[in-house]
């Protein structure tokens, strides 16, 4: 089944790296904003700081990482390279970054011009990205690796969910900017963004990446085949019920219960696979997967509390756990696998001339730094600790505990600084490796 990656199709380093660098930068910004706003930011979903924080997280941190990683995974794991990838990724990155900053500024200053500008920039960013990726998926539909067909189902679902989330979000921001009445689509926007785009993409990636990178057994075939389809169907049903006037609330809640059950099942199976994997000692990425899946399990009781014990903090906690705990953990952990690998692979590609005698490759291979040296395991684990502390603190802050509201921002700054430091360390290692290779080439005439 799906156990093949083709690293030779790795896009140029400049394609995914700017997206990945956005992660610690937007996390720092969110940390600074949460520190400045304090417990007030967690008091309501609707205040400016809370909305700005939510979108710094979902667009700046999670969106950047997921869009960048998907370009990489589609090319490497599915044989679906996106055309004009440098232009597409460069344009998407610039538009997404500036659009997100403007949107957050709009929420903070309640500033209509910023909402309108953000709508245009983000609309263009997602239009370019979705058009390019959809075209690639269509053009390469017959060349997709056999083992990758199953992950393309959740990936396609995730992209459709992204398009729905963006369309609703743009309509909401545009309405705010023009002072029009706000359509009652916010819950739909949240559901399609978190359970559709975020959840389905994570699920698809887990089917492919956990067996390869965490040496787990494969997911049970019925689960990987049917669960994404079931989730997509449930989301469509929920949307139809939500839009229909006069339908009993119980029907919508039943669909929500099934959706929560589907994701809980995936979390349970993923935890079992991680627990029984062939390598007993967990790496930092494994720890992030554990954190993400335990956070997903915690969503079920939170949903029950939100639905049956009407309290505003249950909904806020559910949102925080999904964003910082589930999606935030897996995205953060993924960076510790993907960034060192990209730099290690590109260091080789930068110095080894293809089709020369193996002697030159052998000289370089002896001195090129090993992948594990790009980011130290201890430094990564420390950052994991800071991330988990941040995630718990944000959840307690959303529960309305004021001390946690004061600590949430500083803890995110600590976690983001740790991540930035670790990625920066990897980049310095890469630059030094290239310099060492250049010196080696100067001292070995046979390499020139």
């Amino acid at each position: 089944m799906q156990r093949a990656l083709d690293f030779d199709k790795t896009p140029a380093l400049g394609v995914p790296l700017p997206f990945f660098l956005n992660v610690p930068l937007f996390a720092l910004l969110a940390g600074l904003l949460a520190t400045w706003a304090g417990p007030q930011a967690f008091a309501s979903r609707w205040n400016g700081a809370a909305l700005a924080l939510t979108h710094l997280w979902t667009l700046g941190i999670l969106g950047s990482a997921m869009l960048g990683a998907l370009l990489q995974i589609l090319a490497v794991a599915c044989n679906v390279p996106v055309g004009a990838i440098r232009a597409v990724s460069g344009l998407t990155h610039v538009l997404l970054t500036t659009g997100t900053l403007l949107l957050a500024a709009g929420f903070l200053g309640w500033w209509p011009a910023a909402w309108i500008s953000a709508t245009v920039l983000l609309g263009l960013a997602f239009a370019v990205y979705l058009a390019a990726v959809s075209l690639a998926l269509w053009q390469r539909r017959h060349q997709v690796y056999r083992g990758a067909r199953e992950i393309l189902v959740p990936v396609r679902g995730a992209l459709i969910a992204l398009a729905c989330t963006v369309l609703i979000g743009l309509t909401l921001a545009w309405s705010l900017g023009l002072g029009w009445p706000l359509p009652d689509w916010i819950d739909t926007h949240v559901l399609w963004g978190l359970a559709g785009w975020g959840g389905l993409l994570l699920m698809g990636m887990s089917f492919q990446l956990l067996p390869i990178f965490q040496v787990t057994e494969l997911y049970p075939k019925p689960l990987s085949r049917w669960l994404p389809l079931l989730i997509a169907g449930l989301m469509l049903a929920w949307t139809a019920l939500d839009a229909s006037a006069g339908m009993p609330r119980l029907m919508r809640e039943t669909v929500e219960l099934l959706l929560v059950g589907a994701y809980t099942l995936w979390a349970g199976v993923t935890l079992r696979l991680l627990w029984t994997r062939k390598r007993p000692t967990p790496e930092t990425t494994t720890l992030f997967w554990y954190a993400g899946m335990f956070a997903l399990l915690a969503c079920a009781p939170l949903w029950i509390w939100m639905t049956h014990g009407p309290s505003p903090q249950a909904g806020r906690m559910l949102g925080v756990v999904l964003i910082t705990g589930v999606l935030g953990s897996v995205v953060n952990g993924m960076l510790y696998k993907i960034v060192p690998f990209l730099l290690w692979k590109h260091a080789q590609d930068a110095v080894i001339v293809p089709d020369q005698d193996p002697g030159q490759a052998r000289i370089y291979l002896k001195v090129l730094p090993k992948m594990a040296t790009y980011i130290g395991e201890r430094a990564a684990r420390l950052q994991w600790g800071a991330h988990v502390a941040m995630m718990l603190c944000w959840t307690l802050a959303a529960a309305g505990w004021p001390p946690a509201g004061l600590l949430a921002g500083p803890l995110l700054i600590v976690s983001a600084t740790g991540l930035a430091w670790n990625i920066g360390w990897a980049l310095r290692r890469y630059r030094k490796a290239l310099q060492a290779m250049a010196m080696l080439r100067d001292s070995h005439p046979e390499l020139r």
Partner: protein
Amino acid sequence: MTLPDLTIDVRSLPAPEPMEHCLEALADLAPGQHLNMLIDREPYPLYAILDRDGFQHCCTFEETHFQVTIWYDKP
């Protein structure tokens, strides 16, 4: 004098560690010497790197795992 063949067992290692171990071993491979790699899955990504670097390779399935044999001839 012919050097003995080398064998590395990279079964149960997460990607891309098998590739990394293989490339490390190749750095010490002498002309005509063979490197045998035992691995859980056929390493398609490695083939592209071996082709890039001028190594010869062949792969056989051994009931429970694959064996990839890699060598190069003196230029």
